[in-house]
């Protein structure tokens, strides 16, 4: 993962036709992934650190960070962020717990405890974190000009 990819996004915004996109109210979105490692400090205690995911193997804990910012001059109404989960990653919760999720590829949404899924035996069972295919945050309020934030979710490499 290269930071350079992030900066490529800016020109992409710029090519939006002015008539359709109202360049003045553009929202910027960037995605970052880190891998969580447990390291032993010099005093012997263990500490968790986030590393660039140079080396990733099954079972590793990943931390996904989605940064958003309204770089325009007008508020963005009905701001919704959606993150389809990579197939090789099992969902492991968000930092805020305010997300809705989908366990059917984005067709239907809800809070995970309320969702059910058809199990391998054909019977319906409560959906688990490992069943999540998409995560969505619905801010339910306009994103004012100049404001932004970050959404964090965790996943485990299957």
């Amino acid at each position, binding site marked *: 993962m290269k930071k350079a990819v992030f900066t490529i996004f800016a020109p992409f915004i710029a090519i939006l036709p002015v008539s*359709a996109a109202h360049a003045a109210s553009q*929202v910027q*979105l*960037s995605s970052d992934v880190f891998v969580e490692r447990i390291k032993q400090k010099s005093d012997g205690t263990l500490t968790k650190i986030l590393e660039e995911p140079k080396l990733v*193997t099954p079972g590793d804990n990943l931390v996904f960070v989605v940064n958003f910012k309204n770089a325009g001059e007008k508020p963005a109404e009905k701001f919704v962020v959606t993150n389809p989960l990579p*197939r*090789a990653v099992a969902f492991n919760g968000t930092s805020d717990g305010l997300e809705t999720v989908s366990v059917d590829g*984005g067709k239907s949404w809800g809070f995970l405890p309320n969702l059910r899924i058809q199990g391998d035996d054909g019977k319906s069972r409560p959906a688990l974190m490992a069943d999540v295919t998409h995560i969505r945050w619905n801010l339910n309020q306009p994103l004012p000009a100049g404001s932004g934030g970050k959404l964090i979710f965790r996943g485990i490499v299957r």
Partner: protein
Amino acid sequence: MSGLIPFKTVKAACFAASILGGLCVSAPAFAAGTLAGTDIENIATASYDTPSGTIEIDSNRVVIKVDELLDVTITNSDPGDVNSSPGATTNVQRFLVTNSGNGEEAFRLTPDLNVAGDDFDPTLQNLVLDTDGNGLYDPGVDTIYSAGSNDPVLQPDQSITVFVISSTPATPADGDRAEVSLTAAAVTGTGTPGTTFAGAGDGGGDAVVGTTGADATDSGFLAIQAAILSLIKSAAVADPFGGSRAVPGSTITYTLVATVTGSGALTNVVISDPIPTDTQYVASSITLDSASLTDAADADQGNFNGSQISAAVGNISAGETKTVTFKVVIQ
């Protein structure tokens, strides 16, 4: 127009996931986890409303490649000790080697027949790969292993049975045991968990030693089963007058007790005894464990050929006793 592009991307992402994963849910069903070389690709999308309509945007695309975890397990799959005997050849011991990593990997096999602390050391004849996968040693069908030339290449979660073929020296005694171990090690490399081999991973990433250290050893035992036959003969005399004097006309009943000690079994045991001179065999007097036998060489075990009796008692397991009796009359 541009706003549609991210929308298509979202649909395509789910479509691809649907094809590959059924319900957009399932992960590859490997115990070892995601295959080495798989790209984990993440794109977030956002939508918001403007006076002129809804706009959808994509974030940058983050791609990380899953690296290869080097792990292996090995288990001796014999149900217990493998029986052998002094001087025996082609003792077959089975081991199951499993690639518990997440990439295709070759494994080097190293047997050790001289493990310390046991009773004797067998000699390696061959290490054989169960080429036809039936779990049984098939000489001439299964491939003889040669380190470095045909190291078995296993897919994640795949297993192969390896046979250690050995011979037993002539010296061990009944009950002696020999430990035989087999080690399987990832050819890419082994070491303490976390050791990294840059660029050596299956699928183009790095290779990382997993919790098993990328090598594993297990052992099984050969056990000597040596059966020893002892034969004890006794005689009881009955004279015609109700006493036990050996006079002409007295009947001698000979009793032959065959006892097998040790362990295992002796096969095709035949107990025979010549009729002593100056005595005459009493027809149809052979018994085996109190059951009468005929004198003819026929289906039953008894036989009298004119000069000796014999009883083909067959197999005797260790701890068993067979008793044969016959009678002669003193001339």
